[in-house]
Each structure stands twice: as structure tokens, then as C-alpha cells.
């Protein structure tokens, strides 16, 4: 076993980890939407 510190801290932005996780998932949904639109725009 190690002896390192086990501190937990709030995230540096958006107040809570739950909000950060939600932000990441929304970002993923946006990326998928953009890729879909990109493919549609140039695939005939």
C-alpha cells in the first residue's frame, strides 16, 4: 500500500463534478452532431 494523500477537492470550474460530467457529455453530443452535419454536407 502507498502512503500518498487522499484529498478530494471540488473542480476548478462549474462548482460541482456532476456539472462537469454533464458538460463533457453535452460536448460529446455536440461533437457527434457536428460530425454528422459535416458528413452530410460533403457526402452526396
Amino acid at each position, binding site marked *: *500500500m*502507498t*502512503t*500518498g*494523500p*487522499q*484529498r*478530494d*477537492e*471540488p*473542480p*476548478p470550474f462549474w462548482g460541482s*463534478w456532476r456539472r*462537469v*460530467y454533464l458538460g*463533457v*457529455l453535452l*460536448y*460529446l453530443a455536440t*461533437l*457527434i452532431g457536428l*460530425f*454528422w452535419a*459535416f*458528413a452530410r*454536407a*460533403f*457526402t*452526396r
Partner: protein
Amino acid sequence: MRPLDWVVLFGSLAGIVTYGLYKGRGSDTVNQYLLAGKTMPWYAMALSIMATQASAITFISTTGQSYVDGMRFIQFYFGLPVAMVILSATAVPIFHRANVYTAYEYLEQRFDAKTRALVSAVFLIQRGLACGLALYATAIVLTVLLGWPDWITTVLMTGLVILYTVLGGVKAVTWTDVQQMLIIFAGLIVALLTAILLLPGEVSFLDALALAGAAGRLNAVDASFNLRTNYTLWSGLIGGTFLALSYFGTDQSQVQRYLTGRSIAQSRLSLLFNAVAKVPMQFVILFIGAIVFVFFVFEKPPLLFHPVELEKIRGRAEFAEVEARYSRAFDQRRGAAMDFLRAHRGGDPIRTARQVEEYRRAQKELDAARAQGAGLAEKGNDTNYIFLTFVTRYMPAGVVGLIMAAIFAAAMSSVSAEINSLATVTVIDIYKRHVRKAASDREYLWASRLGTAFWGCYAMAFAQYGRELGSLIEAVNRVGSLFYGAMLGAFVLAFFFPRVRGTAAFLGVLAGEAAIFYAHLFTGIAFLWYNVLGCLVVVATGLAVQRAAERGRMRL
């Protein structure tokens, strides 16, 4: 490669080793050597996680895959951000609070010694094979294109890695990964910009997108559901999530990166950085392949990109006929592409639609001629040689050296993390647990150094003699997916089902492995689904066995 390229390549390699040795100073306790004293900031861990995953062969073959098959491979990464969120919320705090060196050490705390030993053994087999295999595959490609003997490429890459990893431990691995990732980023940006600049003057960037799109090279999202198709939105989101959960949550080569964090928050941020940056990075790599495709619409590509195989088939009687068909098909496609662009710029939808069909027909004929050429060769699949052929033949001096340095960096960053983690599991989960339970810190430190050197030499030897293994290479090519699902299942039981005990988990892992091998050998299910299947079978079996034991129907 010109003199400037050699200067850039060897300058980068020397910089990596010097920096690794410098940053690895002071690793004189086991805690420092294997966990960096838990002092790492989030950005170092984040880039180290990214560099560990980005092997050279991924870099080389992803661009080739996009050239041949379009950008659908991007969907493989859609599950990664989801997995990073789940791991940040579950595995990161659990591992940190358990105060462990390895993920498998936690399994003994939660279950028992035999479950820890089983999963550790699965990791050593799987990661040991994968490490040697990745090195072998990289060496083969570089050997063919640089014209060096195999052993020089392998010994150069692995020898340098062993030097700084043995001496500096995880600190050297992490900080060199940071530097290597920066070289990779630089290589990617320069490769993309140079590829765009090398397009013919009369072809604008939007024209290039139109040509790539019309040939199906920008097809990034496929929403159809088919268990036998490797890359769809659903296999990426569901299968990809399970694969990423397994890789980042149970594979010590990744877990060890974020166990070095100075706090739970820092480790979480390192994973979430990857959740945000990884998909766009893969998009850029695939997009480079699509631009290379457009470049070769106007510049005639070789019939086969594998130079050795191309030389071999030149002597065949059928070669002249195939080459003539290929040349005709290339001229036809170039003409059809220009006609399509003129129609597209003119804005006449009927004429454009007609020219698109013409262009696609010409593309099909070119593909057929290439397939005929590939049929003459012993090894017809030349996907891994496309990007490097483009780089070495067409890129300017200096840029070739930078891209070669990026490829070496990608290989070295993966190998260093892998031998570091293999040594950690060997010492912590095997040597310290089963061989020498109460030795001094100094002895474990030296065992870790020897373990690192051993696994480095093993990887080098495996890569060196990989050619002899022939069909075994094919068999272990998707080695991760054969093991990850069962490993993930063990951790899912540990995290979320507190009633399940050691023997039930142990039997669950065995049942999960059996199910995966059955699916692999006797069904046509795409490999991304193995992780889902293995994990579900482990959890279902673990729960069923535990329930039977509690009802007195089974003695555990």
C-alpha cells in the same frame, strides 16, 4: 530522409532521453519509482494517458484506414468520453482511497488473493503480448520504409525506452510522455497543413472536401445498427464505452498513470481532459488520411504502397496488364474528378449529380485495379504504408524528420508505460504478494528496476522474433478485446455489488473469458461487442453464484 530530417529525428530522440533521465532523478523509493510519490499534476497525467494510448501503429494505420475506408473509424472513440466520466465518478476515488499501487491490489482488498492473482495473470499475458506485438508491427513498417534492418529499429526504440524507464521509473515515463505527446501534436498539425498545401493549385480546400465526400471518405457517422459491422454510432457508443472502461479502468498501463495524481481531483481532470481532447485528435488524424486521398486523386499513387511487395509483383507475368489497367483507371478518375469539380462550381445540380456518379464509377474501377494488384502480392494489405509513403516521398525536408520523430515518440510512449506497468504488477502483485512478503523497500525498488529491464528486453525479443510466429500474430492481434470484458466485469462486481464475494467473482471471470472465446471462435460478432458480452457474463455469473451460495445450494 535528407540530412535535415536526420537532425530533427535524432535531435528529438536525444531530447526525449535526456529529459527523461533529468525528470526521473530522485526515484529512490518504491513509492517514488512506481507512483512518483503521488505528486503528479493533472496536465502531465493527461498527456501521459493520451501518449500511452497513441501507439505508432495507430498513428500510421488510422490515416491509411481513412484513405481506404473513410472516416467511420472515428465512431470507435465515441464511447471514450462516456467511459472517462464513469471512471472519474467511480474508479478514481475508489483506487485513491484504497491506497494501492495496482488496480489488482484493490481486488484482494475487496475479494480475495485468488481473484487478484487471476486478473493480474490475465493482465500480464494480455499486455505482454500486446506490447511486443505493437513494437513488432511498428518496426516492420519503419523497416520497410527506412530501409533499415528490423533489429536496428527495434533496438533503437526499445533500448532508449529501457534506459530512461529503468533509471527514472514512472516520473521519467510520465514527463517523457508529455514531451512525446507535444512532438506528436506538432507532427499532426504540420502533417495536416503540409498535406493541404501540397494539393494542386486549382483545387481549393472546399474542392478537396467535395472530392473526399463524394468518394465516401468523410462518412464519419453511420447510425445503422448491425452487430457484425465494426464501426457504427451504436458499436462506438456502447461497445466503445465498455472497451474504454476496460482499458482505462482495469489495464494497469493506464490506471498507473492516474494513480500518480496528487489528489482525486487532479486524477479526474487528467481523465476528463482526454474525454474532451481525444475525439477531436482522432478526427484530425483521420482527416489527414482523407486529404492524402484527395492528393492522390491528382498525383498517381503506386499500385501497392508496400514497396517490397510492389517490387516482388513486378516480376509477375500479369503485372504489365494490371499496371496498364491501373494507369487507365487513374487517368479516368482524375478526369472525372475535374469534371465533377467544374460542375460543382457551376452550381448546376443535375450536371453535378451526373458527374458525381461518373467520378464514383471511376473510383470503383481504380479500386478494382488496385485489388487485382493486391491479389498478385503475398501481403496485399498495404493500409499501414499509405501515410508514410506520402510523407517520405512528398513532404519537404525537416517535416519528414518531424513526422518520423512523432511516430517514434508514439511507439516509445506506449512501450515505456507498458513495461513500467508490467514491472509494477510483477513486483507488487506477484513478487511482493507471493514470493517475498516482507523484504526491504530497497529490495522492492531493485526488483522493480530489474522487472522493468526484463519486460523491456522481453518486448524487444518478441518484436525481433515476431516474424517467426506467423499466424499467432494474427490470432493475438485483437488480444485486448479477448480479455478486457472479463477484467471489467471483475471490477464492476467489486464496485457495485458489495454482496458478491471472492469465489463468485473468480468463477464469474472464468465464465466471462469462456463466453468471449466462444464468441470469438464460433460467431461473427464484431470485436467491440466482446467487451460488453464478457462484462455482462462475469456480472451475471458472479451474482448467480453468490445467490446460490447464500441459499445454501453451493459451498464457496
